[in-house]
């Protein structure tokens, strides 16, 4: 099924705006714990406000803004793009796979055509066309992963499979939540998740890795992850922590009524795809932010969010960086958000 991208953010009098209707609200229960919560990708998910999840790549009304923000971030810090030398083939593989995914999901906007040995990628939203030959660097203006990063809102991490493990050996990540691709590049799956509390003793990470290593070419799964962000700040990387860290405290110290507008539920929709030619695993991370104010327009969501935040153990809250913001979030939900505790 095709969808035309409507790049204007619609505010429909008859229902909720797109940004709320399409928000991937992540909680299915009143409490949250880590699990290998992977499911096959591509099936639409209905939520209390609408739905999401039809396509593994997702374009929304923030498309142009997010791409501009990505370019700004990479301009200031090119190290948000990393690739170890052996990942060249995986970059090409990821790029072409993503082009195909975009063309399949939004055929009115994207196309990938064949012209003999060459391919032609068309992005009508940006008014750009790029002809290239697979594997031939001289035919692209950028490394392949860097190139496709100019066309999609997702962050991308590529994992090489060898020595009985997965290795995060390349990536383009401008919207990191509390981590640094530059520091983590080259780590194994287990090492990357080293600092996450509980997941090792509970076997979540080894099982997740086993599962991923068993994926065959073409298989695509997804899961969600979440935290809280102050303001619509996409770049929450370790690199820029000195810029945004204080907002957690300032929010807590500021007027309660501002919290609704400033505090956001940050959800990552992650897609995991086994690539064909390189055998690498492609990890797509699509970040969605919705303010507590918007969440409060959906009573089922605000009630559940309240309950999850209230019950979350401290070690998990600490790891997610929400020790300072969850209190104000809970208070706002009670005071202004219509939640009875």
């Amino acid at each position, binding site marked *: 099924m095709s969808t035309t991208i409507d790049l204007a953010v619609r505010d429909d009098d008859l229902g909720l705006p797109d940004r709320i209707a399409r928000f991937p609200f992540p909680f299915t229960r009143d409490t949250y714990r880590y699990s290998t919560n992977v499911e096959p990708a591509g099936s639409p998910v209905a939520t209390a406000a609408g739905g999401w999840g039809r396509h593994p790549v997702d374009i929304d009304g923030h498309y142009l803004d997010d791409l501009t923000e990505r370019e700004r971030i990479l301009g200031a810090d090119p*190290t948000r793009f990393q690739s170890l030398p052996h990942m060249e083939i995986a970059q090409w593989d990821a790029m072409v796979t993503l082009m195909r995914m975009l063309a399949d999901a939004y055929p009115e906007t994207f196309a990938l055509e064949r012209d003999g040995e060459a391919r032609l990628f068309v992005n009508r939203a940006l008014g750009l066309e790029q002809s290239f030959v697979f594997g031939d660097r001289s035919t692209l203006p950028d490394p392949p992963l860097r190139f496709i990063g100019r066309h999609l809102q997702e962050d991308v991490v590529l994992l090489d499979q060898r*020595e009985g493990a997965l290795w995060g050996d390349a990536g383009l990540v401008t919207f990191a939540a509390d981590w*640094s691709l*530059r*520091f*983590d*590049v*080259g*780590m194994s799956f287990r*090492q990357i998740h*080293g*600092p996450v509390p509980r997941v090792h003793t509970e076997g979540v990470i080894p099982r997740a890795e086993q599962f991923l290593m068993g994926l065959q070419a073409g298989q695509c799964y997804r899961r969600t992850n979440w935290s809280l962000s102050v303001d619509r700040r996409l770049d929450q990387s*370790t*690199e820029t*922590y*000195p810029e*945004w*860290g*204080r907002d*957690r*405290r300032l929010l807590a110290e500021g007027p309660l009524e501002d919290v609704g507008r400033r505090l956001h539920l940050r959800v990552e929709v992650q897609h995991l795809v086994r690539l064909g030619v390189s055998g690498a695993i492609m990890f797509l991370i699509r970040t969605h932010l919705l303010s507590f104010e918007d969440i409060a327009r959906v009573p089922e969501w605000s009630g559940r969010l309240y309950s999850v935040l209230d019950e979350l153990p401290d070690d998990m809250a600490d790891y997610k960086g929400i020790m*300072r913001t969850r209190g104000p979030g809970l208070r706002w939900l009670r005071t202004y958000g219509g939640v009875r505790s």
Partner: protein
Amino acid sequence: MGTTSVPRWDEERRIAGGGRYVTVLSFGDAALDRARSLVSSFGGRRVDWIRLPEEWGDTAAQILERQASAARVGWRLMLVGPEATVLAARSAAVAAGLLDDEILPLPVDSGTRTVYCAHCHSTHVADVAVGQSSTCPTCASGLVVHHHVSRLHAAYLGFAVDAEERP
């Protein structure tokens, strides 16, 4: 990464036992005893022992590079020295094509750690434990040393200790 100096004989036997010939690189005087007993433990197998300065630097890097270029599959590399140096040497060995299974890192007890500054991307060596702070000499950020180690950078992650307290 353990900082114990207690021999891990099982692991040594597993890694060294599989190899056809071995090179031991020892870093600094404190590592000599350990390296000596290691070298003498290999029975009939061919062992080379190269003594290097305690700190990782260009000389050590060149020597390791040269050893790796000449090496053939069947080689095992043992690294004995302070943790920071051993981590750096291992990173260089992997970059030269070795697998983890071909490298045995044997850190001798030392309190210094290499810290990677997340903000300016430089590394420095500091006498600091995980959870404590160190100042980045390049950008002057006060960093907290986090329990997250990169084998590629051969360093612990350090990030702004007071980011949330700043006005």
